[in-house]
């Protein structure tokens, strides 16, 4: 769950933050090259403005879209699908506000290209709801008042959700390490730790753990 900083950032499905950034510098197509489902020739530079067809599975639903290869998953989620629960904070993998789950693992949507997300299951904060009912982690954040302005909160909740799926009974130290890639300028950290502990207990009770 840590990148080479061991500090901020999540390991992202095989693309480390630093590796990813350097590949973006060389052209977005390189980052997408590893995903054969994308109909872009890996050897040729892509026209960044040329639209490509992708199918994204988000919260269990398939969305067929035309996207530019350089569009981030974050941009597509927020501005094209209007799933604005996922927040934008820095667009360079430093704040964690855009954290979503990709195949169950926390990942920064700002550092994930939309084309890169094809073939993977994306879960956003909206995907934790059951109808209008809050998910377990969301309910725990509500009860512990684990936020102030609430802007980093969807990212915090997704990081916690990812942690608890991988580790149903984390220690406080494990919670702190797993959540350290999500900044909260209001400083609600003390309540966030309480919320993650409450969520872990609640998940075990309902048999998720």
């Amino acid at each position, binding site marked *: 769950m840590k990148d080479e900083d061991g*500090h*901020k950032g999540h390991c992202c499905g095989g693309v480390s933050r630093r590796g990813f950034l350097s590949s973006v510098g060389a052209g977005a197509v390189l980052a997408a090259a590893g995903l054969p489902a994308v109909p872009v020739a890996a050897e040729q530079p892509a026209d*960044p*403005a040329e639209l490509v067809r992708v199918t994204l599975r988000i919260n269990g639903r398939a969305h067929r879209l035309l996207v*530019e290869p*350089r*569009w981030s998953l974050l*941009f597509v989620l*927020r*501005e094209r699908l209007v*799933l*604005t*629960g*996922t*927040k*934008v*904070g*820095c*667009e*360079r993998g*430093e*704040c964690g*506000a855009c954290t979503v789950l990709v195949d169950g693992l926390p990942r920064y949507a700002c550092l994930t290209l939309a084309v890169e997300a094809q073939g993977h299951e994306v879960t*956003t*904060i*909206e995907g934790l*709801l059951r109808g209008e009912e*809050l998910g377990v982690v*969301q*309910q725990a*954040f*509500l*009860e512990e*008042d684990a*936020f*102030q*302005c*609430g*802007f*980093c*909160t*969807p990212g915090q*909740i997704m990081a916690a959700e990812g942690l608890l799926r991988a580790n149903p009974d984390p220690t*406080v130290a494990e919670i*702190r*390490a797993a*959540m*350290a*890639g*999500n*900044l*909260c*300028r*209001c*400083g*609600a*950290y*003390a*309540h966030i*730790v309480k919320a993650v502990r409450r969520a872990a207990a609640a998940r075990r009770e309902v048999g998720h753990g």
Partner: protein
Amino acid sequence: MDNSGTYFVAGALPEAATPTEPLPPWTSTRVVGARLPRVDAYERVSGTAVYPIDVVLPEMLYAGILRCPHPHARVRRVDLSPALALPGVRAAIGPDSPGADIPWYRAQGRAWSRLLDRHCRHQGEEVAAVAAETPYQVADALKAIAVEYEVLPFVLDEEQATAPGAPPVHEGSNRVGEPAVYERGDVAAGLAAAAVVVERTFRTACELHAPMEVHGSVVRWDGNRLTVWDTTQGVFAVQAEVARALGLPLAHVRVIGHYMGGGFGAKLEAGKYTVLAALLARATGRPVKLFLPREDTFLATGNRPANRLTVKLGAARDGTLTALEITSLGAAGAYPASAAATFMATELYACPNVRARDETVFIHAGRARPMRAPGYPQCAWALEQAMDELAGKLGMDPLALRLKNVPRTAQRRGNLPYSTAGLEECLRRGAEAFGWERARRARPGRATIRRGVGMAACFWGFSGGPPSTAIVKLFSDGSATLTMGASDIGTGTKTVMAMVAAEELAIPVERIAVEHADTGTTPYATPSGGSKTVPTDSPAVRAAAAAVRRQVLELAAAQLQRPVEELTLREGRVVTPADPSVSLPMSALEGLQRQGVLVGVGTRAPNPEGTVTIPFAAHFAEVEVNTATGEVRVLRVVAAQDSGRVLNRLTFDNQTLGGVVMGLGFALTEERVLDPATGRMVNANLHDYKLPTMLDVPVEMACVAIDRPDEAFNSTGTKGLGEPATIPTAAAVANAIFHATGVRVTDAPITPARFLAAAGGKRG
């Protein structure tokens, strides 16, 4: 007085109409004071809350701003045509475009710049703006704009700003007005009479607000009416500035700010981005979304100025202060703002002989804005470290020295009494909760890793006042809507105001909906800032609910044919305490059914005369210092807060600990770094500008709430919390580091390098 005035309406406080009947203090409460989750928690945790940056409108364009890369330059030429030729680009404006000359940075009776000014006085100053179909095309377009700059000499250091030959930021001196001097008594005599004198110079770093939601707006025109979704602390402040800039009637500018992702003082005013977005939207006939890239927010949306403070204290052998002298120098940045930082020192402790001097200068860097207790954490950093040093010289416990000098009156404000004075209680109860005496006695030892404890105190000099108006609307089923103008900037404003209304109407909070922060639909409120929202607006909310309550009781009295004095509200029913047979649900009130809704309007009564009302705090910290590497770990913090009545203990604790976290950033990690060679900021991102992460704050943090209603001040007994929760933290940490190591680190933040430099020969 100081720059906290930015939070308030300019000039004398306007008087609001006194409520029809003064409300007595609550004798007991059932809702107020409880630990309740927020009324808008569902929206915030589910992702359904729509923040301004989340607004997506049909046909909406995206926009961005081209900024000057130099600290000081003149724009010789701007060629927008390469940008306009790119795919998706719909409009571009530069320094010669219509609207570019809108006056900006108005202060001291004139405008100091224009919306897009050819003379750029800091890195990040706005040069041009474009609108395109996607943000990616906006980025392409901004790169394509050709600008020719004449790069000019610059000054970044506040101490060099007034040196002979320093490049002027504006015509004339680099001083922002004359230095402000305050004096009482005779400092020289006080120092001569002192048994012990300490003097030291301290420096604080320039801090950035860095709210998680970047600054920006979505704007939409309907003919000559403008709707703005702005991430702001004050919708009415933005409305006024945008209307003036665009020459529109206030009624034609609707500013909506239902949710906002943090501000900390950086969002008290309208941004150029809103007006630029409006110009681009008008040119294209389409809605425009303009939010700043994170990097730009570090350059152009305000900061807490760096200060250089010198403190001189004199005391008698028993610790009684005999003299206090403090001078401060800080930078406004490139446009007028205040960097004053001495006010707290003139009133925190009893001292007859005081001299304070504040000097603010221009430099070629982004303009300061009020940041969470402007000037106060800087003052605490210097004053409270000097007090610690004084205690050391006197051989006194630092806590005992402070208790010895607790003031009885507001010494700078006519020696008026405090309506409630919680400093002593914060000191005593905080120390008790922290286990101060025992912790202080423990010897740090001589190991490489050493522990120590420190403390510091503060007040915040304001508690708000009129104007404020609130409206409560009771529906025929006994549920209600509260309408108020204030923004909820993350402090839980909506929640505590709903609790106040629920208390007065004797209905559950769940039966209340809150409408707020919309100039089109809500009554006027001043911006949420300066720890004044609760003490300013909650009495207006209570008055509005009380107005509805009176109508309910009058209708019930008529229906039940009983004297109104016999009736009261309990759990949504009209009851007579003396006669249990009388119990009428509000929904059974015939008058209410006929009328549909009852409306109550409440206003904020004027503050009482003859007293001063301010919140106090004392923070206690334990640290562990690695004397070989200079690393500091904060192990635990106790924050004791006197903010009057606690409306909601859950949100009170949260806000207090959040203030502590921000204080830890001030103490240990946060610093704007400008490159002296190029004048550019080198850490304008969240990786290199170090906000505290969860790993940087202690697991163990506790809030001690004094919770004493200030009944003389307002009808809810409340004072503010946001600022005093962050003011003394950093100084407490610095004092703990000294206790652990014997090293006095005068410059913030205390990075490992700074600690090691200060430690010098003392290491090992």
